[in-house]
């Protein structure tokens, strides 16, 4: 176990350093720098002003120095300072991270739980009407562009029916506190979480269905039948439990892709999350910020995968960490 952890941490180190390197140099390939963006947005600029900005941002130095300094800071867990936003990257991310975790967490929870239920139902009725309906729906969710779903949900549930807010995370002007605030955030969360969740719901539904059908063909299911175990219990205790293993694996792999999806959903719903922040940082050439976000998201991914490995050992006694 300890060896496993040590090896994992070592691997994390390599991966994270790799990410920092790739991103750093990729972004330096980009034409234009942060000073140019700020000058551009401000609609006026003098050469002196731009030089002052560049000096302030530290982007007037040679590339390798910038890189070494960045890596040096990373090693001390200092993510740097976003000059564009005028605050430390860590602080910016601390402000945005909860929103992203909430969105990703709730949409993943929705996708996995409902996906398991639907996939389970479809697998138990494989080839029947219910299966066809569920499988078709899942495919439709999968095939529909996420942002389109989002905009349509807003049209229906916010504009036409006026049940849910259009966007944002809270009704700031209402000044809610405590439970009222939680309720308010929950109301704001529904549409973005559903939008983002539907796509992954489709994936998990299909995955669970396929996985269960595969497990249904395994010998131990036949044994359970021969033992006279009730079909429901076979489905839940014998089949589902084994079918969940690939779901857990997929969960770890999908986590990083869900952050990409978050960019779209956060755009549609003005959700103040990291995905959108990363997107904007990219266009603002805010290297420190973008690197910080990618760095942290990869950390999260890596740690979730570690957790997945641990969960795996709980779910599947055959696997042992080594």
């Amino acid at each position, binding site marked *: 176990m300890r060896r496993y952890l040590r090896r994992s941490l070592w691997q994390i180190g390599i991966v994270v350093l790799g990410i920092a390197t790739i991103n750093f140099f990729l972004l330096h390939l*980009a*034409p*234009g*720098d*942060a000073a*140019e*963006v*700020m*000058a*551009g*947005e*401000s*609609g*006026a*600029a*003098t*050469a*002196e*002003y*731009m030089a*002052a*900005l560049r000096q*302030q941002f530290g982007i007037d130095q040679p590339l390798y120095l910038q890189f070494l300094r960045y890596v040096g800071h990373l090693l001390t867990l200092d993510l740097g300072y976003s*000059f*564009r*936003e*005028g*605050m430390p990257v860590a602080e*910016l991310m601390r*402000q*945005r991270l909860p*929103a992203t975790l909430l969105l990703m967490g709730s949409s993943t929870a929705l996708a996995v739980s409902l996906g398991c239920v639907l996939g389970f139902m479809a697998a138990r009725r494989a080839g029947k009407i219910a299966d066809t309906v569920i499988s078709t729906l899942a495919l439709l969710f999968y095939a529909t562009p996420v942002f389109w779903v989002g*905009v349509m949900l*807003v*049209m229906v549930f*916010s*504009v036409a029916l*006026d049940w849910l*807010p*259009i*966007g*944002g*995370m*809270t009704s*700031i*002007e209402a000044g809610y506190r405590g439970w009222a605030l939680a309720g308010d955030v929950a109301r704001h969360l529904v549409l973005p979480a559903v939008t983002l969740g539907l796509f992954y719901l489709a994936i998990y539904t299909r995955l669970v269905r396929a996985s269960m059908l595969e497990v249904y063909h395994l010998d131990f299911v036949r044994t359970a039948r021969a033992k006279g175990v009730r079909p429901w219990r076979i489905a839940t205790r014998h089949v589902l439990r084994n079918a969940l293993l690939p779901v857990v694996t997929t969960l770890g792999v999908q986590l990083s892709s869900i952050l990409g999806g978050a960019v779209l959903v*956060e*755009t*549609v*719903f*003005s959700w*103040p*999350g990291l995905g*959108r*922040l990363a997107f*904007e940082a*990219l*266009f*603002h*050439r805010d290297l420190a910020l973008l690197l910080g976000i990618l760095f942290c998201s990869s950390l999260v991914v890596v740690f979730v995968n570690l957790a997945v490995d641990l969960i795996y050992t709980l779910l599947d006694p055959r696997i042992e960490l080594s």
Partner: protein
Amino acid sequence: MRTLSRRHFLAASSAIALFIRSDKPVWAEDKPQAGGTLSVILQPEPVTLSPTNNMAQPTQTVAGNIFDGLVYYDFDLKPQPCLATSWDLARDGKTVTFHLRHGVKWHDGKPFTSADVKWSLENIWKTIHPRNKALFENVSAVETPDDFTVVLKFSKPSLPIFSVLNGVGAPILPRHLYEGTDILGSPYNNKPVGTGAFVFKEWKRGEYVLLERNPDYWDSGKPYLDRILFRIIPDPAARAAAVEKGEIQYAPFNAIPLRDVERFSQLPNVKIDRRGYDWISPLLYLDFNVENQYLKHQRVRQALAHAIDRNAMARIVWFGFGKPAISPVPSAVATFHDSTVPQYAFDPKKAEALLDEAGFKRGADGTRFAITHDYLPYGDDYRRTAEFIKQALHKIGVEVTIRSQDTAAFIKRIYGDRDFDLSLSWNSAFPDPQIGVVRAYWSGWLGTQTPWTNGSGYRNAEVDGLIQAAAVEGNPEARVADFKRFQQIVLTELPTLPLLEMQFFSVHAANLRDIVSQGDQTYSTLKNAWFDGKAKG
């Protein structure tokens, strides 16, 4: 449909104009009511809230509520007293004296004095302010005989400064918080302390900026609103939905898709207002890279101008929010605008003839030559303009490849690498051509890689001379004459094709009154705005 109806266009615009005028007399007698929270769209999220080092619209829109200026501009763009109660201009135009308002306090309680103005001028306007540096260049000394008097001494007359003295044009920062610190890196840039009607409360990145009523505001009884909540909503369709639903009561700067505006003008709960943008006078233009092997020929540039139907562009691409521009000095800047300049009516035949004359005949495949077009990446309207131009030039045998990029890449390409053929952009003309217009033509900017300056690479000694002469001309009539001559030349040689005088618009809730009360409203304070009847909040 390209044969279009100018009639339709006129009818449409006058209908909206009518409707704008109709609301004023009805409400003028109403007594303002206090209270309520105003939700405003802020798009995109500002970089900083300090108006000193960022001229971007979102920064200025927020800062205009926090910082009062020496003056504000009325609908005729004449300066009106604000922090300066009066001012005197010496006969030789070289000395200006401002008399400051008494009893004005910074939001942290410290008194506002002439020292703040002097410090701001010396440390900001003359040095780091991207636009004012050139205007205040000739200030040789600033004297503060007492706490409420500021005297500016100029080495040469500098009339254009009277067009930039509002809260964001010549921002005054609290000296006691900034002096001796790194101004660009000051923490107060993100939690600004001003003298204005609203006090900065909170900026939650990616979500909102919250301002609260300044209870100690010098203009007693104002502001009427309790709070202003600037909300950041990245998706245009979502912004439109929020306005329609009433979650947002004020959306300045074309914050919702142009197409929605047509529909919104039918809605009872929403009003559309095109005023408040007079001070900035936005102009959409197309830069020709005069170093390009085709575009270096004046006839080619003129031919391309004839090929673009700017009426259709205004009507279709900009949904009528704009009218064809004939000069880089917009017609709204009436004093300086010259309506007798050479004009380039939509005439594809003439365009083709000019190209033939220039020696660029259609090849076997119908193509004369191929060029690229980089458009300002500020949204779909600009991209559609580029697509419109591509198709228009295609008709006369010029193949255009549109290149998309983000802002940083665009600026580097146009002003840094100069690796472009056509480039679409807009800028603010401002009330005096010296501020916004001449930068695109003065050859002194060439080689400095400064954004939003001379993009075409144009060089004309006479034009340079006129620009420099007007800058230090003390006689207003002589300045007007200089600028008219300037317009004649640049519209003949056409390094830059003015496309449209853009008409920005604001959308606001019908029960929100006096949302526009000044010519520089959209960069200024909302202290006059109030909610009618059941106020929100």
